[in-house]
């Protein structure tokens, strides 16, 4: 069987599984549609959360981001940032919102801040964060299809939309939860199998996390070898190269951490478990499942980088000739992820940090994960599995985001603000329509990505960190913060973050409209735009607390609400 046939078979089987699950888990009530009836076991919810969380970017791009763009140590911001948020979530957010016990994040903000304005501002912040995020997933689906199944981008995107449409519109959170569990199993298997093989080949150690600290065949430590090789090629040392400055790394890590704890599509997953206690353990399980991939990724990053360098230059000074380059190399050149240019005309490929002499002119981040199985000469079914895994990661995250968007529209805007009189059946119908609309809207944006889609998923974290996270945290831990404080705080936080990003990246990311230029010397204290969410959050906290001091305190009923969400049940 050819590689393409195997890939169609494996991906087709995984899709058939998702559809089967969808047919068996239709939602019959709004409670099932929004929060899966609150009956999900904490371990199962942990798996679903892990799939919800790990996006196409985590699966396909993160190892390359660490191993290539951020040259090793600098990439740690993603590893710590995208896991550390779960500690905040488990201690400061999830248990209390689960106790509150309703359906959406804007609903809590609206009730806690006794204001429909707060509710609507929260809906707007949610939509800005989630839409930024979902465009990346739709693009991921289209790209994964076109690379592995040799369809064009549009066909790939439509196929993905049909699948998501099917289980998200039919089953809401219930259908999404069960498919996410299946998708987690597919994606984690697909990620770890090639990693185990590459670790075995390089270090003889089957556990990649340990392999990263082990020795190679020549008895030198892998990381030591990589450090030395990169220095020889003119790069910085792998294990110590800082991204920007220490302050920038700290700000970036902190932004990703608190952004994680403020992302609505992650928070609502914790509304699906039966108790407050289950919400806490479920966050722990989610992190266990996430950590399997997040501790494998840095091993893949270092090993695949070393593998590529050793393919190009087996011994120092002995370069691979262009004629003799392996088949996988030629295949990935055709996709545009690899590119060579024989600048000095000697028929050999010289890889170097110096752009004037470097002949590996294109080396895309995604190549570290995508080409890994071929570089390690693994069988066809493993390559097919990576395709299915990448699609599972993109589909599961897209579905979670679409639910967060559609429930904010049907529940918060329609039921709680505009048309409070509608019956539950009408609301369920509205939520299905909102979901259908959200899928079509996301598909449209995937086909016609606006300029800001290039602004990446990292931006969504900055926006969540600066808008929703402070409002949630203050809503739980302070009885004094008022509606005026919360509304102005959210607007100031998201405003400052967007302004900073726009001034460096262009207004709405339109090239040429950035008035300060995307240059490190112009960055505030050397903090890059993607890391600015933490500054936005501090502004949000400051404005909320100051304005709350100057306005009338919240009514007694709100103070009672805060008292009630702080304990799991009334004392027996």
């Amino acid at each position, binding site marked *: 069987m050819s590689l393409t046939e195997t890939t169609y078979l494996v991906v087709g089987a995984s899709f058939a599984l998702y559809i089967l699950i969808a047919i068996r888990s239709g939602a019959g009530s709004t409670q099932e549609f929004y929060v899966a009836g*609150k*009956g999900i076991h904490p371990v199962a919810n942990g798996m679903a959360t892990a799939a919800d969380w790990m996006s196409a970017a985590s699966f396909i791009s993160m190892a390359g981001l660490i191993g290539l763009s951020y040259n*090793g*140590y600098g990439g*740690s911001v993603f*590893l*710590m940032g995208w*896991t*550390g948020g*779960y*500690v905040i979530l*488990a*201690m*400061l957010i999830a*248990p209390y919102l689960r106790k509150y016990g309703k359906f959406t994040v804007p609903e809590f903000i609206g009730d806690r801040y006794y204001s429909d304005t707060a509710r609507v501002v929260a809906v707007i912040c949610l939509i800005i964060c989630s839409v930024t995020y979902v465009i990346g997933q739709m693009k991921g689906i289209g790209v994964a299809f076109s690379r592995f199944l040799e369809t064009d981008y549009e066909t790939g995107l439509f196929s993905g939309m049909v699948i998501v449409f099917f289980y998200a519109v039919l089953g809401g959170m219930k259908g999404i939860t069960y498919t996410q569990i299946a998708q987690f199993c597919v994606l984690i298997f697909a990620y770890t199998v090639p990693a185990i093989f590459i670790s075995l080949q390089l270090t003889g150690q089957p556990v990649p*996390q340990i392999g*990263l*600290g*082990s*020795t190679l065949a020549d008895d030198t*430590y*892998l*990381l*030591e070898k990589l450090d030395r090789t990169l220095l020889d090629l003119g790069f910085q040392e792998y*294990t*110590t190269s800082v991204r920007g400055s*220490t302050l920038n*790394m*700290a700000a970036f*890590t*902190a932004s990703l*951490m608190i952004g994680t704890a403020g992302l609505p599509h992650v928070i609502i997953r914790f509304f699906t478990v*039966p*108790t*407050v*206690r289950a919400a*806490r*353990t479920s*966050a*722990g399980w989610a*992190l*266990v499942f996430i*950590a399997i991939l*997040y*501790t494998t990724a*840095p091993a893949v990053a270092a090993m695949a980088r070393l593998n590529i360098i050793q393919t190009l230059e087996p011994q120092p000074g002995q370069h691979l000739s262009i004629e003799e380059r392996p088949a996988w190399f030629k295949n990935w050149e055709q996709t545009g992820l690899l590119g060579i240019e024989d600048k000095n005309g000697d028929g050999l490929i010289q890889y170097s940090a110096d752009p004037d002499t470097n002949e590996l002119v294109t080396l895309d981040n995604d190549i570290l994960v995508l080409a890994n199985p071929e570089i390690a000469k693994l069988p066809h079914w493993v390559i097919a599995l990576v395709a299915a895994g990448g699609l599972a990661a993109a589909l599961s995250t897209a579905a979670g985001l679409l639910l967060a968007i559609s429930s904010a529209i049907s529940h918060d805007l329609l039921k709680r603000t505009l048309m409070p009189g509608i019956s539950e059946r009408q609301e369920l119908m509205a939520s299905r329509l909102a979901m259908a609309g959200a899928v079509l809207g996301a598909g449209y944006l995937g086909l016609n990505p606006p300029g800001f889609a290039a602004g990446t998923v990292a931006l969504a974290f900055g926006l969540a960190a600066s808008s929703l996270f402070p409002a949630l945290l203050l809503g739980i831990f302070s009885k004094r913060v008022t509606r005026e404080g919360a509304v102005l705080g959210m607007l100031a936080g998201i405003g400052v973050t967007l302004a900073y990003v726009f001034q460096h990246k262009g207004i709405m990311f339109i090239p040429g409209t950035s008035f300060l230029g995307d240059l490190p010397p112009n960055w505030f204290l050397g903090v890059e735009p993607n890391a600015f969410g933490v500054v936005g959050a501090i502004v949000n906290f400051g404005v909320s607390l100051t304005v709350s001091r100057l306005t009338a305190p919240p009514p007694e009923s709100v103070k009672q609400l805060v*008292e009630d969400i*702080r*304990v*799991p*049940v*009334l*004392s*027996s």
Partner: protein
Amino acid sequence: MESNDVTARQIYWRENRRWMLILGTIWFVVSLGCGVLWVEPLNQIQVGGFKLGFWFAQQGAIYTFIVLIFVYARVMARLEKRLGFEEPEA
């Protein structure tokens, strides 16, 4: 009865904040501390094939986060049992 409940709530919230502070401090130390701020001195220590600071930033912090969440879940469950805030199994 009313005042008992108020006292229990106060104890519960005080204990909760105490644990959040302890575990939050460890959370900060292993990630932003060992992984970012003090990474250079820690990198002087070599453990197997890893520089220690690098290991914290790429693996150690994550393992610690998992332990922190389960410890928090456990101490809170015990506290709830002791003070009568235990939820019925759903």
